[in-house]
């Protein structure tokens, strides 16, 4: 039950990210909703839960893009694993820790994806524009992450509660 809920949240994230006039662009940078949600889930659930949701979310995006299928899924899985471990060791209730975890996770995911593309033969331009895109998206994700962390935690608690209720009574 709760897994359907998590999948639905990622599904809506993917829809928000891919629709609209030019995707969800704020201050000229694209908000990577799916990446943000998986990183937040990694902070909430720890390394293993985060890694599974990271892989699922990445695969959803990979299948839609139809290019380098599995690369983004693997990248998100490892990044969420790292962020999950980091937030387990540190005091994740501190907003600065969350900010830094999302910032570092977003930047790491983007860099790893580009490096992965290069490993599979793509030509990638590493210059000012690439650097600014990574920095801009990481900052944007980190700020938005601070705003939606609490609502996501509440939603997560609600999903766990419904899941328990369903397990015990068999009624949704």
């Amino acid at each position, binding site marked *: 039950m709760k897994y359907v809920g998590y999948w639905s949240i990622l599904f809506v994230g993917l829809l928000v990210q891919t629709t609209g*006039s*030019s995707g969800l662009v704020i201050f000229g940078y694209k908000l*990577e909703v799916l990446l943000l949600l998986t990183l937040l889930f990694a902070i909430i659930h720890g390394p293993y839960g985060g890694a599974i949701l990271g892989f699922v979310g990445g695969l959803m995006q990979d299948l839609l893009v139809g290019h380098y299928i599995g690369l983004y899924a693997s990248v998100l899985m490892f990044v969420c694993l790292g962020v999950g471990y980091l937030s387990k060791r540190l005091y994740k209730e501190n907003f600065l820790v969350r900010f830094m975890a999302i910032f570092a996770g977003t930047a790491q995911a983007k860099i790893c994806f580009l490096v992965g593309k290069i490993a599979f033969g793509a030509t990638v331009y590493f210059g000012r524009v690439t650097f600014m895109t990574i920095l801009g998206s990481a900052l944007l994700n980190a700020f938005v992450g601070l705003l939606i962390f609490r609502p996501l935690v509440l939603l997560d608690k609600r999903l766990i509660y419904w899941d328990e209720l369903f397990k015990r009574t068999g009624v949704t």
Partner: protein
Amino acid sequence: MHRWRIPIAIVLVFTLIGIIHYTSKIRSEISFIESAWRDILSPFQSGFTRVQRGFGHKIDFLRNIRTLDEKNKELESLVQELKSEILLLRNYERENEWLREALDFKSELPHEFLVAEVIGRSPSNWEKTITLNRGKAHGVTSGMAVVTNAGVVGTVINSSQFTSTVLLMIDAQSATGGLIQGTGDLVLIEGDQSNEGCLLVTPTSRDTVVEIGDIIVTSGLSRIYPKNLPIGKITHVEPKQFDLSFEAILEPFVDFTKLEYVLVVLPRN
């Protein structure tokens, strides 16, 4: 069971590497899973896009409410200008028809166009693609050109039953031939990775001369785009080593951030 974990993990890793390698190139045919996933997503994307667009239009209206009166006057004078231009063009059209007949030209059949709505965009910052709400069921297949009244948009790279993915001209993987409208010289046009939203123009001959303000149109040699479709205007020319060649920046006529509806160019038959 425990002793099988490592071999299974190794097999999974190699399978994943194989899949990534196989899908690393642009494919004209996509797998059943990808096609089904896109078709499942497309109605939701369509709905989300309409809702977001509706909000966007309302916000734009509220923003522009002060300037509406001025704009109205401007548009009225523009209508007058355009009316006189239409009269002039009708004369040219008649003259052109007469000349064509006189020269016994075979008039080219007009292309057929299919209107498609943009329902999605590439989820990441690195790919420049859009998703259309028309697919194989509507006759859209890979390799078809996509245009708007402003100019060239891109090429269909693959289609599911009800959606198509279009590689925009500004993507780094996109390349096509173009003509300098004034001189008729051929140039190569590619997506520019260092200038977001712009195109890179390189000459195919050493004698090619290009100047700022030159208009570039499709050459028609690729068999993808019809001839003479506008692509963009040269905004910057950078001479290469020893001034033997150059690279120019082309600003596309199409605003790729505001695409809502596009036309897919269907084959003539």
